[in-house]
C-alpha cells in the first residue's frame, strides 16, 4: 500500500511539473487518491473521505488562510498608500551614487515586504520601483531580481502567516515555530547580504539597452509620511517583542497604516478597497491551503500512516550528521514544485514525518523552513521568482542559477541548526 501511495505521489508531482493540473487541484486529487488507497470509508466519522479528508481537511489551515488574507490586506495597503514605493524611492535618492548602498537598501525593504506578505505581491511591492532603480545604478538585471528575491526570503522567517502555516500544518505551537524561525532569520540575513555584496563587487554594469515590453512603472501615489514607513515593523514588533497573537498583530499593522496615511473621511473607502484587493491577492495561496489541508488529512489517516511510516522511517537518516547531509543533498527536490516543496507535496511529507514520530516536531519545522528558504528564492516556477526575473528582463532559470548557490547555503545552515538544536 505504501508503494502504491508513493507511486501516486510521483504521478502527482509529474502532473504539477508538466502543468497538466494546477498545484491545488493536483494536491486535492492526490488527497482523494491516498484516502482511497488507504482504505478509508467514504462516509462516517473523522477518518472517512467525505468528513475527515474533504470537510475537516479543507479547514485544517483556516487560521493560516485568515493570516494570509490579513497579510495580503496589509500588503495592498503598503502599495495603495505609497509606503512601499516611498521606502524604495528614498533609498535610491539617498544612495544612488553607490550601487551597493542602493542594493542593500532595496534588500532591506524586501525583507520588510517579505515579512508582511509573500509570493509575487511581496516581490512587486519592493521590485516595481526597486528592480529598475537597481539596474539604473549599474546592477546586472539578474542580480537586481535576485536581490529582491533574497530579501523577501530573508523576511520569510518573520512572516506571521508562515508561522501560522507551519503551526497549523504540523500541529506545532506557534511559540515553537517562532523559536525556530527567529534562529533561522540571521542565517538568511547574512547569506542575503553576502549575495548582494558579491553581486555589487563584480562592478557596476552600464548598458545602452532598450526595454521593449517591460511593464511601465506604476503611477506614483505620492510620498507616505515618514512615520507611516514604520508600518511593516508594527506586526513584527507586536508578535516578536510582545508575543501578541498573529491575527491581532496583523490587524494592528493594518490600522496603523490606515491611520497614518489616510484622511478620516476616506478611511472606510480605502480600508474596503484594500481589503478587497487583499482577497484577490490571497486567493491563490488560500486555494492551495485548502488542498494542502486535505492532503495533510489524507496522510494522517490510519491506513496511510501505517503504510507510509515504515518506508519514510527507513529512508530518513537518524544520526544528526546524516540528517544534514541527506536532506541538504535533496534540496533540488523542493524546486520545480517537487516533493519537498512545503507549499505542496512537501506538506504531506512533513505530515508523515511528524505523525510517524520519525523526528521531533521542531526538527520537522526546521527542515521545512530550511527548504522554504530555497524554494522562496530559487524555484523558477514560483510566482515571485517568475515575476521578478521577467520584470528585470531575464529568464527565471537564470535567476535560479544566480541565487541557488546562496539559498542552498541558507538551507544547509537551517538544517545544521535543526540538527544541533533539535535532534
Amino acid at each position: 500500500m505504501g508503494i502504491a501511495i508513493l507511486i501516486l505521489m510521483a504521478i502527482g508531482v509529474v502532473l504539477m511539473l508538466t502543468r497538466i493540473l494546477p498545484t491545488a487541484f493536483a494536491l486535492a486529487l492526490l488527497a482523494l487518491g491516498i484516502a482511497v488507497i488507504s482504505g478509508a470509508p467514504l462516509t462516517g466519522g473523522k477518518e472517512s473521505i467525505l468528513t475527515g479528508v474533504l470537510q475537516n481537511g479543507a479547514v485544517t489551515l483556516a487560521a493560516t488562510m485568515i493570516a494570509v488574507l490579513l497579510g495580503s490586506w496589509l500588503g495592498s495597503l503598503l502599495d495603495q498608500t505609497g509606503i512601499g514605493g516611498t521606502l524604495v524611492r528614498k533609498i535610491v535618492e539617498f544612495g544612488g551614487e553607490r550601487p551597493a548602498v542602493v542594493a542593500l537598501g532595496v534588500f532591506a525593504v524586501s525583507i520588510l515586504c517579505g515579512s508582511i506578505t509573500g509570493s509575487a505581491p511581496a516581490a512587486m511591492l519592493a521590485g516595481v520601483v526597486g528592480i529598475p532603480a537597481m539596474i539604473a545604478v549599474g546592477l546586472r538585471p539578474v542580480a537586481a531580481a535576485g536581490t529582491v528575491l533574497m530579501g523577501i526570503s530573508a523576511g520569510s522567517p518573520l512572516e506571521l502567516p508562515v508561522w501560522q502555516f507551519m503551526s497549523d500544518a504540523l500541529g506545532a505551537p506557534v511559540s515553537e515555530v517562532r523559536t525556530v524561525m527567529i534562529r533561522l532569520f540571521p542565517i538568511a540575513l547574512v547569506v542575503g547580504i553576502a549575495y548582494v555584496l558579491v553581486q555589487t563587487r563584480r562592478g557596476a554594469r552600464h548598458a545602452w539597452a532598450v526595454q521593449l515590453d517591460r511593464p511601465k512603472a506604476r503611477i506614483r501615489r505620492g510620498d507616505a509620511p515618514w512615520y507611516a514607513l514604520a508600518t511593516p515593523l508594527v506586526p513584527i514588533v507586536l508578535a516578536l517583542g510582545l508575543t501578541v497573537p498573529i491575527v491581532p498583530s496583523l490587524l494592528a499593522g493594518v490600522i496603523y497604516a490606515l491611520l497614518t496615511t489616510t484622511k478620516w473621511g476616506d478611511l472606510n473607502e480605502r480600508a474596503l478597497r484594500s481589503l478587497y484587493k487583499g482577497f484577490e491577492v490571497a486567493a491563490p495561496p488560500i486555494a492551495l491551503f485548502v488542498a494542502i489541508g486535505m492532503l495533510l488529512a489524507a496522510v494522517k489517516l490510519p491506513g496511510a500512516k501505517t503504510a507510509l511510516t515504515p518506508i519514510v522511517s527507513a529512508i530518513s537518516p537518524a544520526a544528526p550528521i546524516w540528517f544534514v547531509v541527506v536532506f541538504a543533498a535533496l534540496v533540488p527536490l523542493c524546486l520545480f514544485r517537487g516533493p519537498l516543496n512545503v507549499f505542496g507535496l512537501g506538506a504531506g511529507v512533513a505530515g508523515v514525518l511528524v505523525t510517524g514520530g520519525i523526528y521531533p516536531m521542531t526538527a520537522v519545522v526546521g527542515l521545512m523552513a530550511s527548504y522554504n528558504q530555497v524554494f522562496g528564492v530559487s524555484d523558477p516556477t514560483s510566482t515571485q521568482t517568475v515575476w521578478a526575473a521577467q520584470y528585470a528582463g531575464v529568464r527565471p532559470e537564470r535567476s535560479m542559477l544566480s541565487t541557488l548557490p546562496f539559498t542552498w547555503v541558507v538551507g544547509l545552515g537551517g538544517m545544521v541548526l535543526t540538527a544541533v538544536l533539535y535532534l
Partner: protein
Amino acid sequence: MNDLELAVGLLRDTPTHENRTGEQLRSWAQTALEYGDELAEGPDVETIHVIEREGGVRKGEVLLAEHQRGTVIVYTDALRRTEEVARSRGWSVTRESLRRAAVAHEVAHHRLDVRELNRRLGHTAARLGPFRLRGHVAGADEIAAHRFAHRRSGLAVSPLLLTAALAGRD
C-alpha cells in the same frame, strides 16, 4: 521631438520620477545634456578594450552595448536591428557611426562623475533646518551618456531618438 523633450520622457519613464513636475524634469534634463556636452569636450585619457559579439537582440530587450570592468561589449545584431529601424524611418545612419556611438555611450558611463552630476542637478532628498542632503536623480547619467555619444560618434540622429524609436516611443 528634440533631445530635451526626449530626455524629459526618459526621466518620466524612470521609476522614482513618475509624478515630478514637467518643469523639474526639464530642468534636470537640460543640466544632464549640458554635462554630456562638457564631457565630450574633454580629452580621451582612458584605454577601453572593445569586443564585438552577437546576442544583443533578446526577448523584450535590445542591448546595443555594455560596459563592465574596462571592457565594452558591442552587440552586432543589435546594431543591425537599430540600423533597420533607422532606415525604416528614413534616417541616414551608418553601421560604423552606430558602433562609435555605442562605444562612446559606454565610455561616457566610465568617465562621468555621478557625484558631480548630482551636485549640478541640485536635488534635495531631505532637509533638516539649514542642512540639506543631496539626492540622486536616477536616469540623469543615461541622458548625459546619450549626449556624449551623439557628440563623439557623428551620428546623424540623436541616440535618444534612436532609443525611443527602438522602443516604439518616437
